């Protein structure tokens, strides 16, 4: 193929397999090898909600320009699954490449693409592995074939495998052997007719590859988390499991004692209950869950809010309502979380937009919880939480832990024990608290979810109730001033503003780039927290039309901003899609272009 026709570092590879067949290792090895070549990549796993036997797709986007959002198009396809063959074949872009295991006997119905049958079974048989592992190791063959055909550095694949198997020679060897067998076969038998190639770059320096759940867990660990209770649920489980993995390594003290405790609860009612108990008693305390578990946490969330107990609740969102699709992403829990709990509640919500921010907010959420004495919800999602992303290396926190207003024995001594648990001394709505184990005879108080006065005494007095609620509103105002400010790019000085949040960032970033190419410049605000800080109102006020882009059905951020800025409500244009997939730049672009044309 002529060099001028080559398409370099700018395409997507999708690998179709059966879940449970072990392709995850192969796919992440590919991803990481590309990353190690210095090429910007992103990987997305589209998997079914079962354990074995159903179709699953893994898409690697290779993008010299650093775009990492999902694309609707796939140029290179590897099909290992007879069940999805027909559909897969149909999806390849004209001019694309279609690799498939040659034991699949379906007819090839397209002539506009390059088709490469791969003798997977034959090659596997030559390998020295037990029959039970053949299916598994088979995946390494397509890695080898792709490597050869696209130009992926075998050395980088080797070091990706080394990474994956943490240096254990045996599995590294048996895997790399299969990769080599694949590459060798390709070099001898496959004549390339597609234009897709990769070439080394230097665009991944300073970056790492990680998923948001691991990052959130690490963030919490560096943020001094002391207690976590959880109940398994997709796609949140790996957050707690990362705590279990890293805490023993990172948080043993000199005597080998644990400076933390993690408890697997019997359900989410208890997971949050334990978290509240721990938070109340002075531990930096968190739980992690997804939609159904979040719903079950409602009653205790309301109590934590009202009794002012610091806790952190990670909600790694999947698509709902109800059980929905446990393995598909969404941002659909926003309004629910905002109003979560009967009675008047106003929760503080953090909205991480990158893996790195998951790390940062993992720690920040604990700070804010103790500072504000309130539950902090961190809304991540499946896409951010479970997929591998390029991201800035994690930065060691530069501030000490914020433990909030706590009075210990000596503090009480100084003020002669004259304190009230719910008294607003500083005018910021945040009272002082004491912690269990404080031996000062005036330290104790009786926490409750019932109406209480400034001294935590039960009260049914209407004025007392109102005063307490008003103080909680002052506290919410304080929250406005200390939650993370949005990321803003108003450099275009456009009439058009785009507001988005969370994992939409890459798609919106890319959409803005394409829109600009087509003559539509836009300014940008990525929200990182609720309540809204001043910057949001200013951004809205300084733009004529504001598109609010989100991954849910009802435009939930649009709803909340409308409540926040009723005077600006006419400006808002809701752009939302919710089908289990993350947004693509082209879809966003089309939408905005279409609405601008009107």
């Amino acid at each position, binding site marked *: 193929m002529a060099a001028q026709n080559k398409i370099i570092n700018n395409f997507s590879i999708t690998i179709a397999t059966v879940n449970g067949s072990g392709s*995850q290792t192969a796919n992440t090895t590919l991803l990481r090898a590309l990353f190690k070549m210095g090429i910007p990549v992103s990987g997305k796993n589209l998997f079914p909600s079962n*354990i074995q036997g159903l179709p699953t797709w893994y898409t690697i986007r290779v993008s010299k320009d650093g775009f990492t959002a999902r694309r609707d198009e796939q140029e290179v396809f590897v099909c290992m699954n007879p069940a999805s063959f027909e559909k897969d074949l149909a999806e390849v872009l004209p001019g694309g490449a279609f690799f498939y295991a040659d034991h699949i006997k379906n007819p090839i119905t397209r002539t506009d693409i390059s088709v490469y049958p791969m003798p997977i079974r034959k090659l596997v048989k030559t390998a020295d592995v037990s029959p*039970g592992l053949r299916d598994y190791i088979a995946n390494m063959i397509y890695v080898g074939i792709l490597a050869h055909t696209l130009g992926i550095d075998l050395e980088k694949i080797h070091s990706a495998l080394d990474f994956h198997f943490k240096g254990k020679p045996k599995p590294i060897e048996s895997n790399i052997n299969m990769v080599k067998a694949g590459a060798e076969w390709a070099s001898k038998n496959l004549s390339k007719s597609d234009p897709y190639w990769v070439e080394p770059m230097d665009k991944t320096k300073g970056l790492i590859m990680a998923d948001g759940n691991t990052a959130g867990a690490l963030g919490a660990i560096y943020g001094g988390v002391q207690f976590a209770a959880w109940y*398994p649920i997709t796609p949140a489980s*790996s957050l707690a499991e990362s705590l279990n993995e890293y805490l023993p390594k990172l948080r043993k003290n000199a005597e080998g004692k644990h400076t933390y405790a993690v408890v697997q609860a019997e359900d989410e009612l208890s997971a949050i209950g334990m978290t509240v108990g721990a938070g109340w008693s002075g531990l930096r305390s968190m739980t992690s869950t997804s939609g159904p578990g979040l719903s079950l946490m409602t009653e205790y969330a309301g109590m934590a809010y009202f009794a002012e107990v610091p806790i952190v609740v990670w909600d790694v969102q999947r698509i709902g309502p109800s059980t929905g699709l446990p393995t598909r992403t969404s941002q659909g829990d926003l309004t629910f979380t905002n109003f979560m709990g009967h009675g008047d509640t106003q929760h503080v919500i953090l909205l991480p937009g990158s893996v790195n921010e998951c790390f940062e907010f993992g720690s920040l959420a604990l700070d804010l919880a103790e500072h504000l004495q309130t539950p902090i919800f961190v809304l991540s999602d499946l896409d951010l939480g479970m997929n591998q992303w390029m991201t800035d290396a994690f930065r060691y926190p530069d501030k000490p832990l914020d433990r909030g207003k706590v009075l210990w024995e000596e503090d009480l001594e100084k003020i002669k024990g004259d304190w009230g648990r719910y008294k607003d001394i500083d005018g910021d709505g945040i009272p002082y608290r004491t912690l269990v184990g404080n031996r000062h005879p005036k330290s104790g108080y009786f926490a409750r979810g019932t109406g209480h006065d400034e001294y935590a005494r039960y009260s049914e007095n209407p004025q007392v109730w109102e005063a307490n609620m008003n103080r909680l509103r002052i506290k919410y105002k304080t929250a406005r001033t200390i939650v993370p400010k949005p990321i803003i790019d108003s450099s275009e000085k456009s009439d058009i503003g785009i507001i988005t949040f969370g994992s939409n960032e890459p798609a919106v970033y890319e959409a803005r780039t394409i829109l600009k190419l087509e003559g539509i410049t836009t300014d940008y605000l990525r929200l990182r927290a609720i309540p809204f800080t001043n910057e949001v109102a200013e951004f809205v006020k300084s733009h004529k039309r504001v598109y609010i882009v989100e991954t849910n059905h009802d435009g939930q951020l649009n709803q909340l901003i409308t409540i926040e800025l009723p005077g600006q409500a006419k400006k808002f244009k809701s752009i939302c899609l919710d089908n289990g997939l993350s947004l693509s730049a082209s879809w966003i672009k089309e939408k905005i272009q279409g609405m601008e044309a009107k």
Partner: protein
Amino acid sequence: MAIPVTNTNQIGLQKNDYKGLPSTLCQGCGHNSISNQIITACYELGLVPEEILKFSGIGCSSKSPAYFLERSFGFNSLHGRMAPLATGAVFADTSLKALGVSGDGDTASIGMSGFKHMLRRNTPMVYIVENNGVYGLTKGQFSATAEVGLSLKHQGTNPYMPVDICMEAIISNATFVGRSFAGDPKQVKELIKAALNHRGVAVLDIISPCVTFNNQVNAFHSYTWGKDHEAPLHEISFVPKLDEIILADDFMPGTVTEVCLHDGSMIVLKKLEKDYDPTDRWQALHMLEESQRNNWLVTGLIYIECDTPTLTDRHNLPDTPLNRLTDKDLRPAPETLDQINSSML
């Protein structure tokens, strides 16, 4: 051309009429084998599929009602909440039989309370627990029935005594309690048949190994070797296809048999004696205690009691199914409202 011989049961249906969609569970999963026995039991009993209600919670086990009795009504409910849902549904038409399939996590972890209270009420239903000691669908965490000391990769060692579903059932006054092993299809089938004929709640605790996640770290089986070659990541992405474990046919009442699971670990099953009297609640409890001490899993019909009225019995319902009553039955006469109004002057 030969006319194919199709077997039909006493009501003229073929076994196919009792089947469901193809299973999406792992090959070798005990749950599949239980589904098959449900199909066979219903076929052999000659039940009308439309007269069976299927229920489940959430989990691999709770998916399985999709894989049998396709023609029956069913409800795949919420994690841990099958019991109340079924309790509400059985009132609609008491001529139907209710059959629920749940997991050990679904029942004994998150669903403990609803399970116990359903038993107290003697809700008329068959309640099968497909018990594997782990959360299969969320990839292998310990459930509340995990045996004490079980070590699983990524999970560590379970420090807690397992919840004994049968003992819980008996002290909650369940009226039919049985235990079996998915690999003993004959016994499973017979117990399901008996349960379907029981009037009241029938609990079947069926040990149903999870081939994928309930496998121990230190076992020597090649499967574990495979795991060794996998990355110690949260995502376990390789699930080898294994065969279901089926006991030899000579597992006789009164005897003990050891079963080697896919991961090389052992469980010890003891089939109840032929002359065991399952109508004595206290004896049943003693027997369970004894086998706990001996580390046996006793299988068979452990307890049965036939005289307790069921939940719906207690409600004095009409013969016509409640859900077929019409306006006439459901709306009191106008005069009665006049009386009420005048009682409130």
